[in-house]
């Protein structure tokens, strides 16, 4: 059963949350998360109960897909030429850094729907202190009939989503769900913190379903008045792009620096609306280059300077964001644990010879076995 009473745990009592000025952020956010996801938790719990006795297949391997940096961009960049913006760390102010990431996985698959798990992580660095808040895993059974309602329950139940037809249930729904969770956590962080650098994973492009423009805009708009600056780091390294750029052009700069390229992205990603500005950032000499989308009040040089002063870099990528990623990413053990929870809830799991076969031969038919 869904257990809301033991939801909050302090796993490591060492490095205790301190006193004083920061207290407002140090209270366990149990009630925050509980109420934030109340509608969704109720829905998802009901969805799992609805498949009691149903047989679902479990996948043996999960493929993780990663977005590629479009290759045409390189050609464009080479033609237009670039000018690096120097990032200065010395004069930069130290600031709080909060990194957010989410991930998802298919836990079990039936012919009519899938059980998906999602998990999010916030990593908060305040000067020398660092702590993490892990949200989830949440598990939910999604089929064509319930998907719209479920997704909107994740968004607080206030919006109806009608685009579902564009999406393939089995292939995209988990990512869509993780995307929406991510947006919710971003929105939550924007409201919870002040004068903070918020690090997001991915981009600030608004797309159809998991990145609704209104939501992305709302997050960005919410950030500004509270003094928050948003930097979205794309996890995909664009080493190859950089490699080409650096060998082809004379960039008169040593890292850390960024290259403005909002114009290029806008032209390339016609499908989506790009909010904020886009840069290529190379933040450490040994590190790789990353795409960074920024929605900021100050100059990009200032904000990145503060980031470098406040957070560490690992191969040119912010450590807090790596931690957030590690803490939310599912592995085989998580999968086994979640499958055992499904079993305890009366759902029968088996290993079909192939998931494809399962999809095209509806053996469960949603009926009790």
């Amino acid at each position, binding site marked *: 059963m869904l*257990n809301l009473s033991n939801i909050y745990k302090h796993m*490591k009592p*060492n490095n205790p949350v301190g006193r004083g000025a920061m207290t407002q952020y140090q209270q366990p956010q149990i009630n925050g998360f509980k109420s934030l996801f109340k509608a969704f938790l109720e829905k998802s719990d009901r969805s799992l109960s609805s498949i009691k006795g149903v047989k679902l297949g479990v996948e043996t391997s999960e493929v993780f897909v990663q977005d590629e940096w479009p290759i045409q961009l390189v050609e464009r960049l080479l033609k237009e030429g670039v000018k690096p913006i120097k990032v200065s760390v010395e004069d930069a102010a130290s600031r709080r850094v909060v990194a957010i990431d989410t991930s998802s996985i298919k836990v079990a698959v039936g012919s009519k729907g899938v059980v998906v798990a999602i998990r999010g992580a916030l990593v908060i660095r305040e000067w020398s202190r660092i702590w993490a808040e892990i949200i989830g895993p949440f598990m939910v059974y999604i089929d064509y009939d319930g998907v719209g309602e479920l997704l909107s329950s994740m968004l607080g139940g206030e919006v109806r989503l009608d685009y579902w037809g564009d999406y393939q249930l089995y292939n995209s729904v988990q990512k869509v769900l993780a995307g929406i969770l991510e947006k919710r956590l971003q929105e939550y962080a924007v409201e919870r913190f002040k004068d903070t650098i918020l690090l997001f994973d991915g981009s600030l492009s608004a797309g159809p379903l998991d990145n609704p423009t209104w939501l992305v805009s709302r997050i960005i708009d919410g950030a500004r008045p509270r003094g928050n600056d948003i930097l979205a780091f794309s996890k995909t390294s664009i080493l190859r792009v950089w490699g080409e750029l650096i060998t082809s052009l004379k960039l008169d700069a040593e890292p850390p620096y960024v290259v403005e390229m909002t114009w290029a992205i806008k032209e390339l990603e016609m499908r989506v609306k790009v909010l904020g500005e886009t840069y290529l950032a190379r933040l450490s000499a040994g590190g790789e280059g990353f795409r960074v989308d920024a929605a900021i009040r100050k100059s990009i040089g200032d904000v990145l300077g503060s980031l470098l002063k406040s957070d560490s870099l690992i191969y040119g990528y912010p450590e807090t964001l790596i*931690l957030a990623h590690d*803490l939310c990413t599912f*592995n*085989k053990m*998580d999968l086994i*644990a979640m499958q055992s929870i499904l079993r305890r809830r009366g759902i029968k799991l088996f290993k079909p010879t192939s998931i494809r076969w399962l999809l095209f031969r509806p053996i469960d038919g949603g009926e009790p076995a």
Partner: protein
Amino acid sequence: MKILSKNGDKIEFLAAPGEDGLRRGDYVIVSDGGKKLLVQILDVNYAELPGILEDTLRELASEPLSLKIFDPYDVGSILTELKDSRLIVGKVRGVVEDGSLRNDLLWLPSRLESRIERASPELIMELSSSAGRRPIIIGESMNGIISINAEDLDGRLTIITGKKETGKSHLAKILITSLAEYGAKVIALDVNGEYIGLSMRIDGALSDVADKHVVLTPGENFRVSMEDAGLATITDILRYILNTPATSLREFIRLWRLVKKVNGKVTLRGLIDAIGRVQLHESVRDALMSRLLSLEATRFFDDENPVKIDSMINSVKEGGIFVINLSKISSHGRRIVVEYVLSKLSTLLRDGLIDPLFLLAEEAHLYLRETYWDDLITRMRHIGIFPILVTNQPDTIPETIYRQADNIFLFNFTNESDLNYISKTARIDSDTVKLIAKALPPRHCLMIGRIVNDLPIVVKVREMPLKMLGETKLVFGLRG
């Protein structure tokens, strides 16, 4: 608990932590559709889990990080459990059918449907016990009482072995007092003087075996005559123990006969006098004289008031423990006494003057000559001497003895070479010996062989309220 794999007689289970509570040596029953597989646990490990490395690394990396977790489905506690899953390795001992054990390595119980549960101690007792009617309670096993039958020691070769201070002598005491109570006679060769207190209880009162307990101390209440020892035994003593050269031995035999003819009776004094008087090569005279004087020095020989071992043995009716206290004499003296005792017992048994008996020998290599080992398990066993050998150095007992052993009580060993040596015994596979013996706590032993109907059982040896006098002597008194 679930079956993970089965390959021949090897079977693996996966168990949630806390679910098992199983220890090496315990028995479980795997039942499926009325059929029951008897499995002994050899090993309990962490299970190799997919992604465990990744997961543990993740935890390690976030160690300095304080975590707050909102986990509505409580996946975390299942993960903790999963990570502590156990892989249990077992050995199939057979299929239980109509109260007996049948060998069937081919039957595969269902992975999903099988019920796996602890075997009851009653079942194990039933499967492991023989037709005997004289139970000896050894101790506890799997929350039940485990006994063996005295009949399974009778006529058999038994070995008790294990590291120092694991409880071997204690068990030996349980065995011999029980045997004596059932009317058997036991000769105990006691190098440490630890069997001399058997007639007293810890509380100072007399024990149940007090009237059956006789302590024979060579040089004191145990002295024998030359005639009683006889020419053959004395020659053996001179040859094997005192390394007398062959020519001198020949002269000694001549001398013995001469003394017998002249004096009508052979005495040690008579022999020594004769050596002084008769015509002998100087070197032979010296050789024999020095050796006879050292025989005399043992004070084991007394031609005036000798003890006769057969009348001693026969004087105790209804079972007896004859402790030959070897703790106070030199190592030569020890060997001489044992040589005498063994050859005398053989003669007496052969002539039907005494009944078959058990021979308890601790650290026999200290006093048993090499050539006696084979004798012990062939000729002597045949005429009615049934050895119980106790040692903490297994390689001091020849390999052939292990192969012929009917019963082994195996206490803890950690040393790989000791375990290898023991695992040569024919009665048990080496996996069982190595995995179980290594994990045995003190005072626990693995019983192997006829005593358990070849169903190896780990037992926690019971206490015994007898005064033990077996404790290692210490300079500073009580330790710990």
